């Protein structure tokens, strides 16, 4: 989308746009490969946490589903609006290309999708296959996103719905509602107990920890034997709980750790039971 095509330009704006295109072309020569993750320091919403309780509790961050952060346009725009106050909003929108990889608006759709998918996979690896000896479990998922959790919740709902023999739409509705509301309630629970956690980062984490259960649900849908289902669901349930444990336990006061962890386990156990019970 190029503003120059549709809106007649103010005479002073044309020079600004030329200036910016020069800057873009200068930057394009140095960076030709899109990085797998959008550069995280430019996102004002994620703090770097190196201590157990780094944050004031009530940071509510807007979810950003696109990898090109519009927030970063603010510091960039502040630097370049000295030249043209009139066209500052247009400068703001086009200078985010300076902070993030160039041509995100004109790149092929496959590249955008691939970047999102790569981010989902890397977040998944961090959350669900964690290295138990890493130095600071709270540091993972600095680039949280909500696409991954959304995919997993919908996939789990669909799988349960396919497995059900009657009332398929009700099953999907209940599963989706329980998972979505459950994630929100669990996060609120941690916040109310005086824990330090970012709201949407926690939603993202709880969503990613659903991945083993989603795999378990898929296996149960294909497999009919009840004993095998119970074994598979127990294993994936234990995996999900194990994945969620470090994030939740580092977020609250150690005297209240069990109070914060119990609801998480309860939700995953109830989902596991739901998977087994859906015939």
């Amino acid at each position, binding site marked *: 989308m190029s503003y120059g095509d549709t809106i007649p330009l103010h005479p002073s704006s044309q020079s600004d746009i030329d200036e910016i295109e020069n800057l873009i072309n200068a930057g394009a020569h140095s960076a030709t490969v899109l990085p797998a993750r959008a550069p995280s320091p430019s996102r004002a919403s994620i703090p770097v946490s190196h201590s157990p309780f780094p944050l004031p*509790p*009530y940071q509510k961050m807007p979810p950003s589903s696109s990898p090109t952060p519009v927030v970063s346009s603010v510091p960039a725009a502040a630097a370049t609006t000295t030249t043209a106050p009139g066209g500052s909003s247009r400068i703001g929108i086009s200078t985010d290309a300076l902070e993030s990889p160039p041509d995100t608006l004109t790149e092929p759709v496959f590249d955008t999708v691939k970047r999102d998918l790569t981010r989902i996979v890397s977040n998944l690896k961090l959350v669900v296959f964690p290295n138990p000896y890493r130095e600071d479990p709270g540091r993972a998922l600095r680039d949280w996103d909500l696409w991954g959790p959304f995919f997993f919740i919908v996939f789990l709902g669909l799988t349960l719905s396919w497995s*059900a*023999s*009657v*009332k398929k739409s*009700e*099953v999907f509705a*209940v599963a989706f509602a329980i998972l979505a509301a459950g994630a929100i309630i669990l996060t*609120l*629970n941690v*916040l*109310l*107990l*005086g824990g330090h956690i970012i709201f949407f980062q926690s939603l993202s984490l709880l969503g990613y920890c659903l991945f083993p259960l989603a795999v378990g649900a898929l296996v149960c849908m294909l497999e009919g034997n009840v004993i095998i289902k119970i074994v598979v669901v127990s294993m994936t349930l234990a995996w999900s709980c194990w994945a969620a444990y470090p994030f939740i336990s580092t977020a609250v*006061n150690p*005297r*209240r*750790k*069990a*109070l914060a962890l*119990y*609801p998480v386990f*309860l939700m995953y*156990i*109830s989902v596991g*039971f739901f998977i087994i*019970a*859906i*015939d």
Partner: protein
Amino acid sequence: MQSFTVGAYKPYFDVDTADVVERIRDSLFPFKGNFTEKTADNPDLYGPFWICTTLIFVAAAIGTFVTYVAHKLQKKEWDYDINLVTWSAGLFYGYVTFVPLGLYIILKYFSVPSGLVQLWCLYGYSLFIFIPASCLSIVAVEIFRWVIVGVAGSMSATFVALNLRSHIKSAGERWFLIVAGIFLLQLALAVVLKLYFFTITVGTK
């Protein structure tokens, strides 16, 4: 606007694990009667909410399992009934929310006001006994189930009634009616629990 922030409700979650465990243990011994004194200055909403949620899950899970076993033993068709979960959620959350609210209004009318959060705390913890009762109801003997439910219901009702007794006594000559009403409501909840979840009618599904 203030009531929509997280900070407004933080004081009601200011409990440690040890506190919650101790309160749960107190709810199992209804004849001590000192629950309200112990929790007067620090009533919590964590216990009621999560005990309720656990009870919903346990009742739905065990109820489903019991119907499954009953159907399989008689070689009949069995489908998972999703309504079990939704109705049990409505029942328990509704009970714990509205009965203390009603009691609060009644007590205010009789000018012996009790804090609303204290009432919610009391009712929430009183439901804990139904969790082991539901687990024990797996046993397929009908008489056993009724006995279990009766015992749990009366323990729970005694817990609520005794803890409010000292408070209600100052309400004048009507106190007995109030206590009897509380007792009966709690027993009614226990009976509904038994009938909806643990009474099997094979072949009508």
